[in-house]
């Protein structure tokens, strides 16, 4: 399936995956993340449940300290 991840087209095997799957596949190991699927915020408790499907627009923000 093809998705738009942080404004880049990316292709993954299968028809759907959870946010946890995406984080593992992309090696995103940051603790502080903000994740949106098609504009909807996915909280940490939803990472194992929320599904990403073909054509979805996903944003993963890595939050780092400083300001």
């Amino acid at each position, binding site marked *: 399936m093809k998705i738009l991840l942080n404004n880049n087209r990316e292709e993954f095997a299968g028809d759907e995956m959870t946010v946890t799957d995406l984080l593992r596949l992309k090696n995103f190991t940051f603790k502080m993340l903000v994740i949106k699927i098609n504009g909807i915020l996915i909280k940490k408790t939803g990472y194992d449940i929320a599904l990403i499907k073909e054509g979805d627009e996903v944003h993963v*923000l890595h939050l780092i300290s400083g300001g």
Partner: protein
Amino acid sequence: MTFEQISAILKTRKVGIAGCGGLGSNCAVALARVGLGTLVIADFDRVSKSNLNRQYYFLDQVGMKKTVALKDNIGRINPDVKIIAHDIRLAPENIASVFTGCDVIVEAFDLADQKEMIIETVLSEMPFVPLVIGLGMAGWGKNNTLHCRKADNIYICGDEISEIGQELPPIAPRVGMVANMQANVVMEILLNGEIA
């Protein structure tokens, strides 16, 4: 647009600044200089000497509440700006009421968990208000790595890489650059659609 036309539009707008540290104090001052109508500033902290390497305060303000000191400083630059100051620790239960009516909110916190908190709160409770965040500005040099990008209604300013640490402190040039990038994005959002 002339500066007078820009100021005339900005005079009718209200912007929230979440945190009055390196990002917030500098961003607020930039917006005050261009004639923003109302600034809502919020912070619980006091000015300390170690803040002076990047934050818009003066040595004789050490010990003052940041909201009080910033209001004074902005008043000395542009007394026409209305400042609504909240001496408060921002949290999920007060963010929506503190920033009610704001056209844009600027995230100007220091710590990653606080950034996460305000992003989640604004997205959940005020999803239509643009949020401008600062992400990655520690250290010095590397001008060209600083950028701005949009993720839905979140605008991200910074290099998204440089986290603060003992060997990579947040200091005036780069923090000020990102704070001014945030102010620049706020202007872009507020003036968008106003250009005939």
